């Protein structure tokens, strides 16, 4: 569907016809639908912990308990290195990023199927569906982050000046999660197998990222290859900026950022290409 909005007299003129070729994100249209976008994000946030006892505390339960388990097994028993800082804060700093990333990917990937009621009944830029969870989970991330600040104070670990790059690291996570989410969301409209694939992809991805172990555990010559996983750069950047474990990994980040941009680009392209048949097959 090619949507050409142009002024004819005072009235907008819309032409609907079969869409041909590939297109990227239509930011103008997204901006026109920003109110809907806003209300959908708000809805996701409000609904998530409705009728629970702990409410927003659930945002920290998951990373906190994983931290406890990981510290016991990987820190105490397996004696994995932690770049010279206590293992709990070493793993928790990665876990909050990881928790955000994995919930965003899962939410984003299932977004098209879970909003089939909307997609088959009303028009809106379909991109809003996979973008919404990525934004909505930011709140959980912030809540979990507050605990990290508490732990930093407890362990007397203070951030470096590189903490100014934190927003950039978060944006990288968002781009990666959205990119992968868009691909999975498009695929799952047609192939419901994706719903069963996501949990173990995420599981596998976690162990392929430096969550329970530091990058320094790997031989240095593999670091740049390892950084093809965008979460490598992000998590390592997190630890470096906040906990001062290693020097800021600019090279790793450059590789990770490029991959993450490519993922986002491919995801957007593929999503926009397939969105025209969502309502037909969903």
């Amino acid at each position: 569907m090619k949507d050409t909005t142009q002024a004819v007299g005072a009235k907008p003129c819309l032409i609907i016809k079969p869409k041909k070729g590939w297109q990227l994100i239509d930011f103008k249209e997204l901006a026109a639908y920003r109110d809907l976008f806003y209300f959908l994000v708000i809805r996701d946030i409000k609904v998530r912990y409705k009728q629970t006892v702990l409410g927003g505390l659930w945002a920290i339960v998951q990373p906190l308990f994983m931290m406890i388990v990981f510290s016991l097994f990987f820190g105490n028993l397996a004696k994995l290195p932690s770049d010279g800082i206590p293992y709990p804060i070493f793993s928790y700093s990665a876990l909050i990023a990881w928790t955000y990333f994995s919930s965003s990917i899962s939410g984003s990937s299932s977004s098209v199927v879970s909003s089939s009621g909307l997609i088959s009944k009303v028009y809106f830029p379909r991109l809003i569906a996979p973008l919404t969870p990525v934004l909505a989970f930011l709140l959980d991330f912030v809540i979990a982050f507050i605990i990290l600040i508490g732990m930093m104070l407890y362990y007397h670990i203070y951030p470096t000046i590189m903490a100014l790059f934190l927003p950039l690291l978060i944006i990288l996570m968002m781009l990666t999660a959205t990119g992968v989410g868009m691909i999975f969301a498009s695929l799952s409209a047609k192939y419901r197998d994706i719903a069963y694939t996501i949990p173990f992809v995420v599981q596998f991805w976690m162990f392929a990222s430096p969550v329970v172990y530091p990058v320094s555990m790997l031989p240095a010559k593999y670091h740049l290859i390892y950084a093809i996983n965008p979460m490598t750069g992000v998590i390592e950047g997190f630890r470096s900026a906040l906990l001062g474990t290693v020097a800021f990994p600019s090279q790793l980040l450059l590789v990770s950022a490029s991959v993450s941009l490519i993922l986002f680009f491919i995801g957007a392209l593929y999503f926009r290409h397939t969105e025209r048949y969502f309502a037909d097959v969903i």
Partner: protein
Amino acid sequence: MSDTIIKVNSLSKRYRFGAAEKGYKTIRETIMDFVSTPVRNFARLRSLTSFGKNDEKDVIWALKDISFEVNEGEVLGIIGRNGAGKSTLLKILSRITEPTNGSIEIHGRLSSLLEVGTGFHPELTGRENIFLNGAILGMRKKEIERKFDDIVTFSEIGQFIDTPVKRYSSGMYVRLAFAVAAHLEPEILLVDEVLAVGDIAFQKKCLGKMEDVARGGRTVLFVSHNIAAVKRLCQRTILLEQGRVVEDGTTDKVVKYYLGAGLNINSERKWDDLKHAPGGDVVRLHAIRAKNSQGEITGEFNIQEPIYVEIEFWVLQEGWVLEDGFYFYDESGLLMFVSLNNLDPAWHNRKRPIGRYRGVCCLPGNFLNEGAFTVLAAVVTNPHTLHAMERDAISFHVSDSGSGGVRGDYTREWPGGVIRPWLEWKTEYVPS
């Protein structure tokens, strides 16, 4: 005033239904099938959105080469049987799905209402859902804020506005959902069957609101099965059949055509060949027909005019006392009533000589409700002998002109009922 606001150019839409699975047979086949299932499933799912040059048998054209124009301020009805392509057309117009071929030009802000309460979340309060649903229907935040009080008043929810809608009764839920939809102010409104929800009182309120919208000079495309509603709201109607526009014109004309074709109205049945006519050695049917008071054979009756149902039959054997009669069924197949000719003193308890007979039964005007009716005709001898019978012998349609008759000056949609008889009323003031 009569600028073209929507222009549809040879629009087509193709769908594919997944091919049917074949049944399993032996254990070996079952195992082989199980192993090869992923391959077949993948091919099947992938083919959902890819189409070959030649049309395979599981491909259907939901719309085929549709063209029409809508002028500004026009209220256009779209009718057709299930699967005729009405919903597909609305979905393309509202950009939910894209056409396979052809194009549409739309000049103006368009909102579509394919259901009420799209995106309502049960956990959110009425207030939160008004904003969410309003945004989903295309309203801006400021617009919703401005109309918020009106929406709450219209919905009659009042104090429950901050209660999660999952605690609402279904009536409250629908009222709130419709209240939001009713406050849309697009230049073009697409409506699909939303009036089919809720109780009669609510449907009336919706229809009233629709009439306001239509009178307000806005362009409305109204898809419905409710012929009475289409007749009241729309000057012009399009009839879709198997994805094509088969009629486009004044509502009266199109509805008449639809009812005649759609329900297979057959106002006369005649058997010229005696040997193949229903019946046996004693009686054979000759003809069954419906006539109006001018004696014309017709399947269309105004609700206020009498209907003459006629049966002609041959008596082939002497010595039988016969009763001819009709069973009248409504659209749903409900037997409404039965009438026998034994009330006619002329042949009551008299044996009939060989020959042809004609029995006429008169249904008075202001008696049946609007709708389509089918007639079963039979000739019997009391108590237990059935000589001839024809199910669904003929059918006819009764329509409501919208004023006069039993409805008097009541202009809303008639509340229902199997029949709509003209009854006497007396009202007096009782001094206390």
